[in-house]
């Protein structure tokens, strides 16, 4: 009976892991594509998508592996389908790294994403990494080292908005049975 239980639950967990990751990819994609809030400031026309926020939350809740996959695939897929195919390799690396770093720091030393301070550290550390990857990637793409600077302010705004949203949402989700 005990072996039955363990083999069964092993398959169940791998399947569930897979599907959870798929759902998180879907969430990151959706937030990138359709969810945005309007900022009073004019960067990016004022409309900032919530993809980064969603990615941060996923990485904090589920750790580095799912964080990296959700970021890389969720946003990479958005590039592929949304007409930004050329940028997708950059996104894949930048967002994958971001998810990984946040997840790693938030889940380091058995913190399991429950330590708000470390979660913030994770997010803050990931931001420059993302900016650098985009800078280098776009530099190669455009054949210029000046043009990619243009996307930095927008990216910064979007990332900091992500931090501002991820903090309260993660605090709230901690109380939910499924995420305890």
């Amino acid at each position, binding site marked *: 009976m005990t072996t039955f239980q363990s083999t069964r639950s092993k398959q169940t967990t791998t399947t569930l892991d897979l599907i959870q990751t798929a*759902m998180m990819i879907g969430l990151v994609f*959706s937030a990138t594509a359709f969810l945005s809030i309007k900022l009073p400031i004019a960067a990016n026309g004022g409309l900032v998508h919530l993809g980064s926020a969603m990615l941060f939350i996923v990485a904090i809740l589920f750790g580095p592996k799912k964080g990296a996959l959700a970021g890389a695939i969720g946003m990479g897929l958005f590039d592929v*389908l949304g*007409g930004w195919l050329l940028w997708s390799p950059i996104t894949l690396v930048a967002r994958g790294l971001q998810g990984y770093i946040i997840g790693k720091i938030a889940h380091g030393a058995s913190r399991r994403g429950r330590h708000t301070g470390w979660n913030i550290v994770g997010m803050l550390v990931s931001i420059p990494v993302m900016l650098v990857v985009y800078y280098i990637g776009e530099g190669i793409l455009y054949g*210029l080292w*000046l043009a990619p600077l243009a996307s930095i302010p927008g990216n910064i705004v979007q990332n900091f908005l992500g931090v501002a*949203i991820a903090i309260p*949402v993660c605090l709230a989700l901690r109380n*939910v049975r499924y995420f305890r």
Partner: protein
Amino acid sequence: MMEKMIFGRFIPGESFVHKLDPRAKLLFVFAFIVIVFIANNALTYGLLVAFTLVVILMSRIKPYFLINGLKPVLFLMIFTFLIHILFTKEGDLLFELGFVKVYEEGLRQGIFISLRFLVLVFMTTILTLTTSPISITDGLEVLLNPLKKVKFPVHELALMMSIALRFIPTLMDETDKIMKAQMARGSDLSAGSLKDRIKAVVPLLVPLFVSAFKRAEDLATAMEVRGYKGGEGRTRYRQLKWQLKDTLILVFLVVFAAGLWMLRG
């Protein structure tokens, strides 16, 4: 409603390009991205543009959709164009406007880089306009298959992608519903100060996560009940058919690339 916008990028059709195998199209586009960088003079860039035009014609995509696809990158194109014009200071001075000096080489580079961008964006847009997301996933899965040898989880990745795609419209509907329910309770993402708006995200995202999580549980259960136990021993229902024309267009692309190589300056 929102769902249709993303998948709306794919426009079903019966053209030659639509009917190509997604693997062929993916390989074609990846190769094309590299080939574009061969061009370096007026002749080769001209050929690239002509080639792209032929593909556009063959795809029978209405120009409206292509132009639409261009919109998001238009700003970038203009921006790079200007940067080249302003900062490349080689060749003859063409004209001077106050402190702005435009050199021949700058103009040339500006035009070339913009053209390169344009053909790349058109070509990639055509791929997404003529290939359904699920075919793209199928194509990628098969192309990545050799990586299974090095234990790369190709099946899992493809399954995750296809399930994510399958659930995006559902998640969007859900988002819409939750947003409306919270709006009816007086919380609004699109009103108030920045702080208010950020606060209004919590009542939206928390239920969205909870529901996505429940869906994952339900779906995993349903999959297991239907005998899902990983990628091993599975057969495939979606079959891709490689046809002669798929080989031909790739051969043609190689010939084209060779031609470009010989004609480059």
